[in-house]
């Protein structure tokens, strides 16, 4: 791996966050945090609210009540573009690149906030992290393979060297080998270079392997938290994925 950019990481704090899409809230009272140079993962079965939490953190879904802090800055419910300007980078699960634009143009969009003089140097640094992208700079992003696209999506965010990196199921739809490479090499490098990384994943085992800490979500709440070692040893951990023995708590309100 080539020399990594050094990022000024920011601590991320989500305090007692409740959020939803209009009717009943999907997530309730969630508190998670991630420190610079840390990889924190969020795992849990489908429907547990992982994606919703990330969307609440970046201003796509309304958080009420709750607080989100990036460093000292309160970014709760701010517009997405302001949150991005506050040093929070977000790789969504779908629609993660500008499909009609080329790879180079995607990176340029990622570097929108940079000064012209910085753009070229930053692009070089990002390409050093994802060297495969350098071979396809002129190709429209819509024509990339799954793994290449995800690398471009991450590269686009990396252009700003955000203090906090949020990733929503980056390995979804990727072949196992590509997924492994993405997590073990590229995501790990993000933390190595100083960013606070919060990653939502379905592939619990794989992401646990690179995480410093993990939160297990279920039914819209945090069910367990701990280091990968602690969780793997716990029988409850497996149960929370396979639904056995744990009935979801009845929530107030009707169907």
């Amino acid at each position, binding site marked *: 791996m080539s020399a990594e950019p050094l990022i000024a990481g920011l601590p991320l704090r989500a305090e007692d966050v409740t959020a939803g899409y209009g009717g009943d809230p999907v997530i309730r009272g969630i508190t998670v945090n991630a420190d610079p140079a840390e990889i924190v993962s969020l795992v849990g079965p489908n429907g547990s609210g992982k994606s919703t939490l990330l969307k609440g953190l970046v201003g796509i879904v309304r958080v009420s009540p709750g607080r989100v802090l990036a460093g000292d800055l309160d970014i709760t419910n701010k517009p997405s573009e302001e949150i991005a300007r506050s040093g929070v980078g977000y790789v969504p699960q779908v629609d993660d690149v500008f499909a009609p634009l080329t790879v180079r143009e995607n990176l340029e969009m990622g570097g929108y906030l940079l000064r012209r003089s910085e753009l070229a140097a930053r692009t070089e640094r990002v390409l050093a992290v994802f060297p495969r992208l350098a071979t396809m700079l002129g190709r429209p992003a819509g024509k990339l393979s799954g793994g290449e696209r995800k690398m471009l999506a991450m590269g686009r965010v990396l252009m700003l060297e955000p203090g906090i990196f949020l990733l929503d199921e980056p*390995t979804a739809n990727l072949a196992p080998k590509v997924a492994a490479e993405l997590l073990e090499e590229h995501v790990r490098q993000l933390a190595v270079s100083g960013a606070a990384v919060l990653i939502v994943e*379905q592939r619990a*085992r794989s992401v646990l392997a690179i995480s410093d800490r993990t939160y297990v979500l279920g039914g819209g709440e945090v069910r367990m938290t701990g280091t990968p070692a602690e969780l793997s040893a716990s029988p409850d951990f497996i149960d929370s994925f*396979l639904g056995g023995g744990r*009935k979801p708590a009845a*929530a107030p309100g*009707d*169907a």
Partner: protein
Amino acid sequence: MNAFYLINLLVYAAVDAMACLGLSQQFGIAGVTNFGFIIFQAAGGYAAAILAMPPDSANGGFQRYIGGWHLPFPLPWLGAAVVGGLLALPFTFLVGRRLRGDFAAVGLLVTAVLLNLLVTNFVPLFNGDAGISLIPFPLQSVLNASTQAYQWVFTAVALLLCVGVYLFLRRITESPYGRSLRAMRDNDVVADSLGKNLLSLRTGVLVLGGAIAGLSGGILVSYITTWSPAAWGYAETVVLFAAVIIGGAGNHRGAVLGAILVPVVFEEVTRFIPSSNNLPPNLIPSLEWVAIGLLIVVFLWFRPQGILPERKRVIAWPAPARPLTAADADGAGAGAGDGGAGDGDATATLAARAAERPVERPGGPGGGQAADGAAGQVLLQAAGLVRDYGGVRAVDGVSLSVRRGTLTGLIGPNGAGKSTLLAMLAGTLPASSGTISYLGQDITGMPAFRRARLGLVRTFQLASEFKRLTVLENLLSAVPGHRGDSLRGAVRGRRYWGDDEQAAIARAEQLLERFGLREMANRYAGDLSGGQRRLVEIMRALMTEPSMLLLDEPMAGVHPNLARRIGDQLVALCHDGMTILMVEHELAIMDEFCDPVIVMAEGAVLAEGTMRQLRARSEVVEAYLVG
């Protein structure tokens, strides 16, 4: 007020009301935005003119036009309607395809502008921008057209025709065919998946609206005896749209009200404004246009449903009179229920339709024992199914069999291929290789709607109810082979399709009772909660009397208590002979209800058994954790 003034007013009212009714049927009921509407009225007018006129050499030959066959009344008016209707046919290519609504509307708008331009400039066709004049009154050669008596009779005929159009449109709209039009308006993709032929429905309303517009043009032409292209720029269509929007799109009385309020009132108001030589000559008409533009924007903002909004179709509850016969209870009838005693004709056709279904079908939710259901018989079988797409192998050699009367769960982590497999079984996605058979019949290449007719029906994950239809109407819209669900059937009236409807309502009632949504029957489906809408989706699938259901995540986003209730219902259905294959993520539900459960991972079947058995198997556990 003198008599001629009143006659004038009434004739214009009749013509405008007729045009607005036609437009409302297209735009308000069927959701077809025809910005070229005015061309159909114009075409009808010209058709009536050239049919009624003597050859163009007559009257000193100062006009040039085609036709001139000097036909007697009522042929010019009939011709007007026919031409208006036929003219719709070339434009169906714009509305049949999956073209964005606004793009298609623009295409029609442009056509109106250009056709007007062409007619204005091409003299031999319709005398260019001078238009045609001296058009004969109906029966002019026999009667004296300038007497008041004649004029009153003319007016009466025009009004009668307008009333006739109103009644006719009411008849076809308040029928299962009308319900299908409204369903198409609300969600055309779902209507399509329920077997509604979108192209045919839209063509139907375009032609019908065109014919009505043409007739109105013919009447107008016969009254004012002249016609010129200046009368139909595209702005005239905008006036009609304003009328329909203000009066209430989707409501026939609203269309008439709008016609009275907009074209007629506007026309009349100008008579009462004192004319003054100081004002520029165009000022009042221009301000009228400005007012119409303002009204459109204002109404769409403050009251888009119009003054008389579309009425909710409330269906009498419980369904009246006709008792359920034993045949109904078995559910052994064909697609639309038993015809009942007395209508031998109906029973014969019902029997014919029954022959389309395979003989062996378990009773649907109508209850009762499965007639000759051999429990445990294999209903659906797949062998070596593969799906390759975009360089990815989503399904990798899956074989499974589903037995009658079982509630089978299909689980697995994200990306395991569950939804893809379901879609292949249902016919919405083709298999790259492998075979599927249903009741011993090979259905591998069969399209989805055919499989549905065999009794293999799927539901969809995303919200797919028809929001502006009631819950009951949503269920009724799914009934296949309903007699009233065609234009011909609708025209023949309730006497023709009433029995089918009663049977369908009875079945729907039972389903609503069963799923606990009886009180919601007459509420708009769009007003229900997410979980309730899920139930509507399932009930709607059940209305097609399937023998096997393929459910795609029916509990997604549903409150756990409701999910449990849905699960109970599904189990009960299986006791009655239904077979269900269900993709789900809620593994707690699988525990309680499904047996067997099939686990998929990375495109292949990993294991099969009860949830308890599966949880004990390490490879299953690994699959979920590895993802």
